[in-house]
């Protein structure tokens, strides 16, 4: 099937943080990011909706409020389970993450309300809601997590078969981005090629574990 647009959602790993064209201000998604590379391979325009520092909750919220076209193809690289956010009615997203050590909400969240199992369950709620939402809209979509450890085969209600490619595995094999933390240009390129290869050779569909 041919698609008119590649739409991607995710965090800094999808944004292409601190790559050659957007370092140090990171004001726009990088043309070296994996979505830009994947769009070239698929020969379609790219809409990279990734947001720096996003939690899975924010990714879901962004996805639900996006105006999709029928012939879009959507790739989501979900974020760290740890992260959370509080959203206000003015659409202000207050991120909660371990890097925000000066933020009292974040500190208290991790001290009082954080639990490994809970963060996983809530992420899987968001993955499955996004999947069923896109499925009902007949929007083709592929879901990825950035590390293998995030895949949980014990949740019987989970209906998502994540694509078996992990950016964390690739990142450390190549030079890092200019912030010396995020994946570098080569890692993004290889990741996009791996996704493309899986996409072309597998019954990749997101969907049901069948």
């Amino acid at each position: 099937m041919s698609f008119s647009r590649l739409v991607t959602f995710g965090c800094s790993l999808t944004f292409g943080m601190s790559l050659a064209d957007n370092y140090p201000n990171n004001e726009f998604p990088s043309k070296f990011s994996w979505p830009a590379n994947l769009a070239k391979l698929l020969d379609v325009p790219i809409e990279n909706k990734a947001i720096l520092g996003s939690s899975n909750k924010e990714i879901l919220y962004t996805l639900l409020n996006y105006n999709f076209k029928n012939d879009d193809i959507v790739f989501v690289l979900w974020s760290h389970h740890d992260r959370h956010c509080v959203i206000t009615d003015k659409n202000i997203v207050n991120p909660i993450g371990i890097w925000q050590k000066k933020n009292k909400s974040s500190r208290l969240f991790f001290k009082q309300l954080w639990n490994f199992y809970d963060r996983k369950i809530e992420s899987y709620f968001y993955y499955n809601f996004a999947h069923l939402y896109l499925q009902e809209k007949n929007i083709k979509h592929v879901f990825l997590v950035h590390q293998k450890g995030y895949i949980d085969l014990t949740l019987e209600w989970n209906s998502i078969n994540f694509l078996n490619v992990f950016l964390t595995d690739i990142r450390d094999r190549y030079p890092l981005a200019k912030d010396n933390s995020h994946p570098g240009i080569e890692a993004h390129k290889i990741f996009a090629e791996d996704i493309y290869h899986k996409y072309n050779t597998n019954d990749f569909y997101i969907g049901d574990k069948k």
Partner: protein
Amino acid sequence: MVAKMDYNRLIAFGCSFTYGQYLPDDTFFLKPDAKSKKGLVKSIQKKPSKYAWPNILGEKLNIPVVINESHCGQSNKAILHDILNYKFDKNDIVFILWSNYDRHDVFTAKDHQWNINLYMSNVRSKVYFKYMHNKFNTTLENYFYFNLAHSYLKEKNIKHEFLLYHDRFLADFKWNKIKFLDVFFSRVNAPLPKAYDDLHPGVEAHKQFGNLIYQKYKNSEYYTGDIK
């Protein structure tokens, strides 16, 4: 009017308003005090009340088995978790009276969670309501839960109807797919005698609520499903 199929089981999910807390068959008075009953009554019920609305509804619908899967004090997050982990049969019909927005749960295992409630004095509850809670965010999270439950049951072809206790819980998100049944327990409960704690709905309120759900179900084309 839509054709109604025969169901073998009615499965109800919810909180104390579905459980029937403090109704006559399930309540134990710790220290009865005629002057100030409040605070002295203690619920020790081990199973949902036979007077609770799911039983009334099951009887009216002539469904042979009513399974009340509600738990007192549950948040909507925990109700969703219960739904996702429940083994449904194809001839089940599911009614969910979703809970209040003033509570939350943090799961620590499949069958264990930390309860967080606006009226609890523990540190977790205080932190949650001071730093994590605002009306929009809470409504948003609850609508995530409602919509996942709906899409999940719909995909499994399990007939389901969703209810809210109060119409102030209704919200307008463009991606919302749920049309709640237009029966709100708060309206039924307000003028009627309360349960033994002077707070929860009493026997008559449960009876009227069950009957009202039945009337809506019987007479309308309503399906909790997609907003057309």
